[in-house]
């Protein structure tokens, strides 16, 4: 009687599957939300800024101001949504959030350029979304600076030609340029960064929640007592309860990864074997945590709220959307206690950088430690509960 009986474990697993899949709505709700979440996240979680809507307020109306406009349109970064003619109108458009920014060219702009005086282009940016705002401000000032450099070159050329004896001296002026090499994500699509992260998050939340709620449900509706009077032992019950969700978790990883590759065409440079191996390691943590929450909750609502309370900081500190590097130092240390952080790094490394165990082993060790610790804590608590 001391060794766990596989027959009893199998029975529990069978019961668990039957209970989960008995309800037609549950069958749908087990696999649809992850894919739906992936789709919404994939399309909506996007920090790229292209085609920002701006207002164009040209008070100068000269060929020079039109040149600047052509540069803005030619950059393919901006869409001129409104062409107000007064400053109040510009202010109103920004206040109502109809545009993300506005360019104002004051009267005398063209004249100043013709006379070789320094002049300015005013760029107003709605800062309420600081991220978008700093990107827009960057784009706009680069375009204006580019136009300025062009004007300067022309003025110079005119001056030099007049002065030099043997033709233009312009050739002797150094130019400095910059080439960028962008690795792993050359088009800088934020989708490539977010979608793998979404895979990690969905797996975490879904398996955590399902495990926690499935066990508490038995307590809440009173079937736990019935289980306790059967010859099944705590350890067997625990295995029987978690293994189905481990399996469901693996199916979800497959489903969501496939959807990510097919729908979002996210590059996948690494090995599927590494991804699934790490997913298993990570599932140990989420199932263990789900089990733990179930031992400290009486009702499904408690289980759900507790899961949510813990998951939220884990999710936010994982580096999913907010780079860990930007956090205050104390918070950066806190992220080392966040298992999602390690899985996030693994998933992104495997998808985008194609790195393998040789680079990712520290993260894998961390996940294994988390998994074993939380699983054994919950196992011991689970036992006490039942005895």
């Amino acid at each position: 009687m001391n060794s766990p009986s596989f027959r009893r474990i199998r029975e529990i697993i069978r019961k668990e599957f039957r209970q989960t899949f008995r309800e037609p709505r549950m069958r749908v709700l087990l696999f649809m939300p992850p894919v739906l979440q992936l789709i919404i996240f994939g399309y909506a979680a996007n920090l790229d800024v292209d085609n920002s809507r701006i207002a164009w307020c040209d008070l100068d109306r000269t060929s020079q101001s039109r040149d600047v406009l052509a540069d803005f349109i030619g950059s393919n970064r901006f869409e001129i949504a409104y062409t107000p003619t007064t400053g109040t109108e510009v202010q109103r458009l920004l206040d109502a959030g109809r545009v993300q920014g506005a360019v104002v060219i004051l009267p005398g702009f063209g004249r100043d350029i013709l006379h070789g005086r320094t002049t300015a282009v005013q760029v107003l940016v709605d800062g309420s979304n600081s991220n978008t705002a700093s990107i827009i401000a960057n784009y706009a000032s680069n375009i204006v600076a580019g136009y300025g450099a062009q004007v300067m070159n022309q003025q110079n050329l005119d001056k030099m030609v007049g002065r030099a004896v043997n033709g233009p001296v312009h050739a002797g002026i150094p130019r400095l340029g910059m080439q960028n090499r962008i690795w792993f994500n050359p088009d800088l699509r934020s989708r490539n960064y977010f979608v793998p992260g979404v895979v990690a998050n969905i797996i975490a939340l879904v398996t955590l929640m399902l495990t926690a709620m499935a066990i508490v449900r038995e307590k809440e509706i009173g079937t736990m007592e019935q289980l306790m009077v059967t010859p099944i032992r705590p350890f067997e019950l625990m295995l029987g309860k978690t293994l189905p969700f481990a399996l469901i978790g693996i199916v979800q990883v497959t489903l969501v990864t496939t959807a990510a590759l097919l729908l979002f065409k996210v590059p996948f440079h690494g090995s599927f074997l590494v991804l699934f191996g790490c997913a298993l390691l990570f599932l140990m943590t989420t199932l263990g945590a789900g089990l733990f929450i179930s031992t400290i909750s009486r009702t499904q609502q408690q289980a759900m709220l507790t899961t949510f309370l813990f998951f939220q900081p884990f999710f936010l500190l994982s580096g999913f959307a907010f780079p860990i590097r930007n956090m205050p130092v104390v918070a950066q240390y806190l992220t080392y206690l966040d298992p999602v952080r390690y899985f996030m790094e693994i998933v992104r490394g495997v998808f985008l950088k194609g790195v393998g165990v040789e680079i990712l082993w520290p993260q894998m060790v961390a996940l294994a430690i988390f998994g074993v610790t939380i699983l054994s804590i919950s196992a011991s608590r689970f036992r006490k509960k039942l005895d």
Partner: protein
Amino acid sequence: MSFRRWRAVARKEFLHILRDPRSLIIALALPLVMLLMFGWALTLDVDRIPAYVYDWDGTPESRALIDQFRASRYFDVQKYVHDYAPIDKEVDRSHILMAIVVPKDYSRNILEGREADIQVILDGSDSNTASIALGYAQGVVATYAAELRSEAQVRRGAGKLKVAVDPRVRVLYNSDLKSKNFIVPGLIAVTMMIIAALLTSLTVAREWETGTMEPLLSTPLRPAEIILGKLSAFFTLGFVDLLICVLLGVFVFNVPFRGSVWFLVFSSFLFLFGALCWGILISTLARSQLIAYQIGMLSSFLPAFLLSGFIYSIENMPIVIRAITYVVPARYFVTILKGVFLKGAGIQILALETTFLFVYAVLVFFLATKKMRQKVA
């Protein structure tokens, strides 16, 4: 519609909440945790980008160029390396995000007045950080290029060059470009949705699951009374969460508040009422807590988090998703919140959004009552 019966249901709900202190504490702690996260730890602002320098040239000229990067607060030059291998390795490990490579003939080209190119390597996997870093690097190089040109002109006796056109950028509403200033106001919408999705959506489902719904239905209670009674309890919770968010946001995390408090409270009530009615509607339809939770997450929390403009701006989404955001009430509420907090906008500017919230609240209330009546019958 009897006020006494409504009050009786409300009392029962309050007792339910008070009897389960943990759920109550979590409902109040969640906004606190999220505020702390967004107010203190999380930011999208990019500075001190860790970088390596590979100075192939090694001359005073190349060092002068690198000093431009070192002087900028956006870059953190950590180390000088002498080939590409360490760059490769550290980028793979995500220890650095950027490398600046100065080619061998840099100083010769500059001194002889030819074209010189430097190379900037960026880890693009975090595209947002990378594109902001790229913008800063371009800025540094462009400014230095103009300086070099001007110096060369002076050496040739042509007189100093003047900048022809100056981009004068002014950032409105959030002039120090802090991401917490736009995220914390939006949090109010998100926490209210948590109350709706995680608490309200379970309330009727639990009565079904534990078998207390039938006794409740056999009482003379009318559907509207059940709904309003259940709502009162959660409404109070939501209001406390609103207070926590506003007070902590403004006084602890120094988020600017430029609009009218009354308008904020009014629009929050409208939104909260609609959101809670939606929670009840889900709960009436679902009958099982797990299913109610799944639907609640998908239909209220996730849209409020993702499709409302809370963090990710709607303007950047593909057209289909943008169309969907128009039926997400949180979208209108987040616009109102940002308007009230950052722009000091009032009901004149936000009339459209307020009207939508009103219509939504009324519509969902009637739907919920109707569904509840069907269940009663």
